[in-house]
């Protein structure tokens, strides 16, 4: 939703200018509606990424056959792969569109670029999806340090460099959802607001449905992050309880698709293995303490 930028008019750009890029987009006008394909022609420029392609489409809003259409809706933010906004399925692979460089895409698949919304989240419109469930999972695992408050109480506990180096990679999860989209166990949950249902009632119904669904690799990894923090770990039992309940770690079939697509290269399978051990220990403890 931001403006396209001027073409650098160097001679190299001029030569390539004539070249058109075919971009096929899976569109959908709203939740629950039928998706349909549209094809766009976009003049090729140097250093393009999928974001700049979508910016050009927004500015032209015309398909290959000259039909005027509404601009494609999509989400983006930082444009440098750190905010997690711009996830979509590009040429069949879920990834961030800001780092999807056109030169590279064309190298691998010269005829066209195919853009689809993520498959595991309800479509709001076109390439825009509702990832509320992803954030809800962070609440399920109590992904925070339960400090007393925000007054000045001096520094936190001293931490070794080794511990920092263990936690920092996990803490880089940008909630993009790639790992969820690729996971065979993560199934789409899509509810529709009923006539006369208030926003609050709908949100509550949604939360209840999400609570039963698979929590996802990203949240399992966050649970491990906070369990490895000196104060965060005081909630470890509650996190283990959540991971042991319906939609918890037992759903994971260890397909390892998640780790393969994570743009931040977060060691998700390591987190999942740790979570497996930790919930088993927790169950044993619970058994003996009965």
């Amino acid at each position, binding site marked *: 939703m931001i403006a396209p930028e*001027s073409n650098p008019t160097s001679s190299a750009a001029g030569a390539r200018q004539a070249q058109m890029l075919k971009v096929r987009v899976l569109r959908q006008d709203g939740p629950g509606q039928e998706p349909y394909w549209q094809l766009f022609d976009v003049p090729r420029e140097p250093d393009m990424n999928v974001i700049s392609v979508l910016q050009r489409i927004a500015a032209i809003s015309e398909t290959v056959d000259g039909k005027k259409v509404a*601009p494609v*809706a999509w989400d983006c933010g*930082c444009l440098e792969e750190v905010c997690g906004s711009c996830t979509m399925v590009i040429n069949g692979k879920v990834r961030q569109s800001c780092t999807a460089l056109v030169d590279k895409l064309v190298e691998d698949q010269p005829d066209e670029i195919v853009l689809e919304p993520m498959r595991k989240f309800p479509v709001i419109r076109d390439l825009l999806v509702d990832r509320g469930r992803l954030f809800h999972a962070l*609440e399920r695992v109590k992904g925070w340090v339960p400090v007393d408050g925000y007054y000045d*109480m001096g520094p936190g506990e001293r931490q070794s460099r080794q511990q920092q180096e263990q936690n920092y990679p996990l803490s880089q999860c940008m909630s993009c959802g790639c790992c969820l989209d690729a996971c065979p166990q993560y199934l789409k949950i899509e509810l529709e607001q009923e006539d006369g249902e208030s926003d609050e009632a709908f949100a509550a119904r949604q939360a209840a449905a999400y609570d039963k669904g698979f929590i996802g690799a990203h949240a399992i990894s966050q649970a491990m992050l906070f369990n490895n923090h000196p104060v965060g770990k005081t909630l470890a039992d509650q996190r283990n309880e959540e991971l042991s309940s319906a939609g918890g770690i037992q759903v994971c079939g260890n397909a390892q698709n998640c780790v393969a697509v994570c743009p931040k290269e977060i060691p998700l399978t390591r987190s999942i293995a740790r979570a497996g051990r930790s919930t088993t220990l927790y169950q044993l403890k619970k058994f003996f303490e009965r």
Partner: protein
Amino acid sequence: MSAHRVVVVGGGLAGLSATMKLAELGVAVDLISLTPVKRSHSVCAQGGINACNDQTRQLGDNEWKHFDDTVYGGDFLNHQPPVKEMAYWAPKVIDLMDRLGVPFNRTGEGFIDRRRFGGTLYKRTAFAGATTGQQLLYALDEQVRRRESEGLVRKFEFWDFLAPIQDDSGRCRGVVAQDMSSMEIRAFPADAVIVASGGCGLVYGRSTMSVFCNGSAASRCFQAGADYANGEFIQVHPTAIPGSDKLRLMSESARGEGGRVWVPRKPQDARAPKDIPDSDRFYFLEEHFPEYGNLVPRDIATREIFDVCVNEGLSVEPDRMCVYLDLTHIERRELDRKLGGILEIYEKFQGVDPRDVPMKIFPAVHYSMGGLWADYARSADGGLEPGAPQNQMTRIPGLYAMGECDYHYHGANRLGANSLLSCIFTGLFASPSLISYAQSAGGSYRDVPASLLESAVKAQQTRHDELLKGTGDENPYLIHQELGDVMTRSATVVRRNDQLQSAIETVDELHQRAKRVHLSDSGSWTNQNVIFAKALQDMFPLAKCILKGALQRDECRGAHFKPDFTKPSLTAEDPAERRRQAEQWCDAFEENNRKYLKTTVAKWDASSDQPQLSYEDVDTSLIPPRPRLYGLVGAEVIEEVWSERAARRQSEASDTQPSTSSSSDAKV
């Protein structure tokens, strides 16, 4: 039910720290943001956050020096009491963020590691890899999620703030916002409102900022009667990676960790960079500024890079301006540990490994020092009065500004790693002020008259409907592109009055055209087109503040540089003559300060569609302004003359005025 309800617009560092603190104090918060708050622009900050610390203290550092570096770096345009308070809070802010779980880099012994940033001689900057902003933001996001699960915070994400709601007395009683999916426009009544909406980089088309940084929220407050201050002070970061959709920042930490900036001495030397021997390399920052080297303040580094490319013709590439930023002399492991995140960005977008090959960089628009004018209460010791209702309050009673969208902390130029600090500090420090305000102002969010809410919604609905019906023929995306081009050409590194004058005319025309946009989507579901069109229209008031402020300021100060008004270096060889020149130089400096050491304050005049500027004194009562002399020939003599004058003034002052009370607030 909580006694008070506050609306917070924006969930970057400032908005989240405010929300978290308010929730701790038992206040209910409605948090409104264009994007899930975890994706706010603060996530992009790379380098770090400043605070003096145990290690620097033993080298002679203290809070006062951090304060001094900040106002000196800001060319004394910062209001000193808020900056002082911030510097004294800084170590506490780091401690708190440490407790919240931010994985700051550690020393071998487990202490928080520090690096050096520009504009200081001390290693004050704490960092978490090369994604410090992300890590700080996440820690706050987590606390806010915790408060949300307890029920005190309600989030409205993918909502666009449209306007403050004001009653007949002018007091802010809530906001109007729009759901970006359903397009529903709704009123949010509140006891008080915080706007923490970040910077306005999109006014320049491309910048280092996120696409959310369109300035719309600040502009909407400005148009509703809040003043906008120091708009002309826009920081251009010296080192960014040019790109067609965005200019991606290469953090100052690259230089903090030893990165060296250079160009080949021979213009466009065709050799590969590593084949160019040291003797054929021009390390221009190190040569010109032996003390600070590659870590001179940003405004200076930016102009030097600009100058070496534009005026000396030494750009590395012939058809695109850039210089080398070189890290290849540093060990790979070390680079990965400390700068991994930003080096990956370079690699991802340029396809070249900066650990092997020097990066190519050029300056880019990066930060807005100016913003919504906001008040404060000065305490007896020259800091801020905790809990005073006016801290961070805009000209609209009950409407507060915090974070990059306020104006008083960074003066004419922000020091690296000071912004994350000012954002978190204001959120923590000033939130209690809203409670005092709500208590003293009386009334409650529960009894805002329904008619007031309805008419506020109606006004926005009308604007929305008219845009959808619009019969014009202008394309908003192309207008934005033109706006970005003219702003970038006329109001960045080097400013000239003739160019500014003609830019003002162009921007006026563009503004008129932006009112006649044609939308290619007239639907009522997730219409990004109409949201963009509104944001675009609201960029113009800010663009006009920037241009007009720059035009009227005939001097050089911090990021605002006009070559026609530079102060000369000393030319005389003869010591007596040189001394005389230095005296003259100091006279001119004092004269200039009398005229221009002022905050530019803009009021929006809707009838003419123009900002009206006036000037206000800056509170410089704690540290008297002194010349910034980085790299000037004759600096030593000027400094000598200046210190003599300062000493003289001080002894005069203590003769006549035993209590150093200048506390009769310099602000009017």
